[in-house]
């Protein structure tokens, strides 16, 4: 086993290599703040419409409410997902996924691996799918989803989405009790690379963020999204939809949104996502 396979970067390298060999386009992370790999246009927009596509990429995912100031061994403001989209989903998709775990040096016959029902749903994206969480010795390492709907649109062909929780898999492979104890590279720990970022962004999300400014930004982003849609610019419109979504997450972690307001704001983001999806599909058909 090559030495760098037991590092965080080695793990990413191995998985991307596996999916590159499988025939995926290897994409880069989206350059906006997002909460999950699903929000990357390479997933959200590519699963729409009829064109086949295979893609894999890492997506740093920011979840302000999960921040713990870099003090909790398992919870992070920002974690990393490795996202794979196979459209249409091949018949042996589960077997291919299991082969990717073997490529990481995990001997599955010596472990307890299970596919347990877990149907993914994103109210803000108007998206849902059917699938499982994959548990390895009781640890959830992957979300596996057959996409059924995105942006309120019924999907056909059906894409398989495989989302690896990289920190989770790394703590398993490296046998560490805390993500901060992981080796990012042979010479640098996860803590060295990321702990300060966790501390400062947790502080910002819970204590510092300016609520009024965020509400203001939310309204402006929403307006700009709608303006882009009017100008037939579906992709820029989607960027503003993502900005709304992240701004909402920040407001939420800041405790600025009551339960009743929450429903309304989610509906506003969802409305944008639905309109972007429709615009994207229509412009394809032309």
């Amino acid at each position: 086993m090559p030495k760098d396979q037991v590092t965080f970067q080695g793990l990413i390298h191995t998985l991307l290599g596996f999916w590159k060999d499988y025939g995926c386009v290897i994409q880069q992370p989206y350059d906006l703040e997002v909460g999950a790999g699903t929000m990357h246009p390479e997933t959200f927009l590519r699963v729409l419409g009829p064109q086949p596509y295979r893609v894999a990429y890492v997506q740093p995912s920011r979840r302000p409410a999960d921040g713990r100031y870099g003090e909790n061994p398992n919870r992070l403001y920002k974690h990393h997902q490795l996202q794979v989209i196979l459209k249409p989903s091949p018949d042996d998709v589960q077997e291919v996924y299991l082969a990717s775990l073997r490529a990481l040096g995990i001997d599955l016959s010596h472990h307890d691996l299970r596919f347990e029902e877990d149907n993914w749903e994103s109210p803000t994206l108007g998206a849902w799918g059917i699938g499982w969480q994959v548990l390895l010795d009781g640890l959830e390492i992957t979300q596996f989803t057959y996409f059924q709907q995105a942006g309120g649109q019924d999907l056909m062909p059906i894409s398989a989405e495989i989302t690896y929780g990289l920190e989770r898999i790394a703590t398993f492979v490296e046998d560490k009790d805390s993500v901060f104890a992981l080796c990012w590279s042979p010479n640098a720990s996860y803590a060295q690379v990321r702990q300060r970022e966790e501390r400062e962004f947790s502080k910002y999300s819970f204590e510092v963020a300016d609520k009024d400014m965020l509400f203001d930004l939310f309204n402006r982003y929403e307006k700009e999204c709608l303006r882009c849609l009017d100008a037939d610019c579906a992709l820029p419109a989607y960027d503003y939809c993502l900005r709304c979504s992240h701004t909402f997450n920040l407001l939420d972690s800041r405790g600025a949104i009551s339960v009743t307001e929450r429903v309304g704001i989610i509906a506003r983001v969802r409305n944008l996502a639905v309109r972007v999806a429709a615009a994207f599909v229509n412009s394809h058909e032309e």
Partner: protein
Amino acid sequence: MKNKFLFELGLEEVPADMIEPAAAQLRKSVESLFEENQLAVEALETYSAPRRLAFLATGLPDRQPSREEVLLGPPVSVAFRDGAPAPAAHGFAKKMQVAVEQLQVVKTEKGDYVAVKRTLEGRETPDILATELPGIIASISWPKNMYWQESRFRFVRPIRWLVALWNKQTVPVRFEGLASGAVTRGHRFLGRSDVLLKSAGEYLERLRENYVLADVEERQTKISRELERETPKGLKVISDPELLHLVCYLNEYPTVLRGSFNSEFLAIPQEVLITVMRHHQKYFSVADEKDALQPHFLTVLNTSGDPEGKIRKGHEKVLRARLEDAAFFWSTDLKTPLGGRLPQLDHVLFQEKLGSYRVKTERIRRLSALLDHGKDLETAASLSKCDLTSDMVREFSELQGVMGGLYAREEKYPESVWRAVYEQYRPTSLEDASPSTLTGALLALTDKLDSVVGCFAAGIVPTGSSDPFALRRQAQGLVKILFDHRLDQYPLPSLIEAARSVLKDQIPVSDQVVADVLAFLTGRVRFIFQEQGVPFDILNAVLAPGVGAVYQTWLKAQALMKMRGDADFEALAVAFKRVKNILAKQEIVLAAVSEAALEDPAEAELYRSFREIQPGLSAAAQAGDYESALRKIATLRGPVDRLFDAVMVMAEDARLRNNRLRLLFEISDMFLKIADISEIQEKPAE
């Protein structure tokens, strides 16, 4: 050798709770397929596991029995003229492709007809199976379906293989792009991915060799045995039948493994620990003889063992992270006093028209004040919903109520208060116990009462398929509490009125809604009593006068059940039906019975007997001694019979007639305070 037919549907992992119902559906469809096709089967076994649904049929015939078919033609009178075949006969024979001479005469209800009789050869059994199985697969219904390929066929999870074997032969079944074969698949990691079956009968055995126990009973036996084996000496597994059922369907080759956690976590209340282990990890908890939780857990793996201890280490690590989260929630939640969370409930919506949980809390508090049970109940009511904003309940919603109770206990509220909060959601089913204390029972009662009356007023009425607020369960819980705690001081109509008066600030409760709620609750009383074995006619008898106090209604039913079989009583029931029929048709002018107008000795005797039993009857009914009351009623059998023998109630003389009607009315009115005994059937109804 008997014929054996095996069918297996290979799937990607099906959600554990959906497997058993699907296997039952499969069994039913296959049974009716055999029946419709006159295929007698000796044994039918169904097998199911996360990746497969299967059945094995033993002793099917090679083919259907042959049968005679009669095809009717025209009437003989038309088909034959003077004994010779007419054009109609020729036409029919031609259509049936037989010679005219082969036509036969058949007698029918409408007369004699010309007919053709044919013997139909039965189809071969494998042929029928090949044709019918696709329809059977497609007819299995699931709570949630998905698409996975362009055919737009929807099923619970993708179908990946089919096995159909008639003894040693493959039966060609085609379905959704798949063709059946003789190859099944073993355990994902321990078995072969292609297991060739040489014959249908070796299914279980070949799979077992490949680490799949396809028979759920075999899995359950293995799990139960190993749970016992892995429990440390002197300790016991905390029984959890629901979890046991789930893990049976979560694994193809279950193996029980024991792990441990740091005993420092035992400082967290054990309700929380058990929920954490069960909710996310599906672990069984372990306790000592005194029911104190111990720092061990038992998990069911989908593999054959853990010789290197790696798996155990992994599970222990995951649990540690979960328990650390729980410890964090517990300590942060305790930083805010429970009562201090009340204002936050403004932001938690109960129902749009019925307001937030803050508003609901206030209604529960006011309702409990109306029940007049003292300060503790009102305190418990104010605290009851506060745990909804705690981190722990947000993470584990099934701990609502329990957490509020535990936090209240930590804050040193009196036991009657914290226990009432803790048990406020009980009973969740007919089997579940009602709250153990009176304060707890009243809190649970007011909460459920407010929900049921409020939702009905808001137009949320349970239907066959939809009951989002679980009103049926709540109403049942409400009735069960009244019954278990014998709360006869709170009759249903006055409870509903109380809820109405408290709800009126949010929503008006119309008379119609009040009537609907009463009917709904009466329906629950009927259901609960029925489940307790009260026969149908007795239910009708005790519910007809309207349910007031629930437990009194129960006592009446019990008394009626004892009286049934008493000859006098049953005869009286028949007579009473007659009384009711007579009275139903008459306008009764209410006035006292005139003794002077009782001219026949029979009516005078009835009047005297009635007057004699009246005080004792009232006293017995007041005391809830319905059996003596009914026995007193039964003594009227003779006088009533003699009255009907001797006099015409509907006499021509209005004075006599009205007096008799009044006598019957008084008697009937007295009886109806207990039950409508005219509903009682002579023989026990099923």
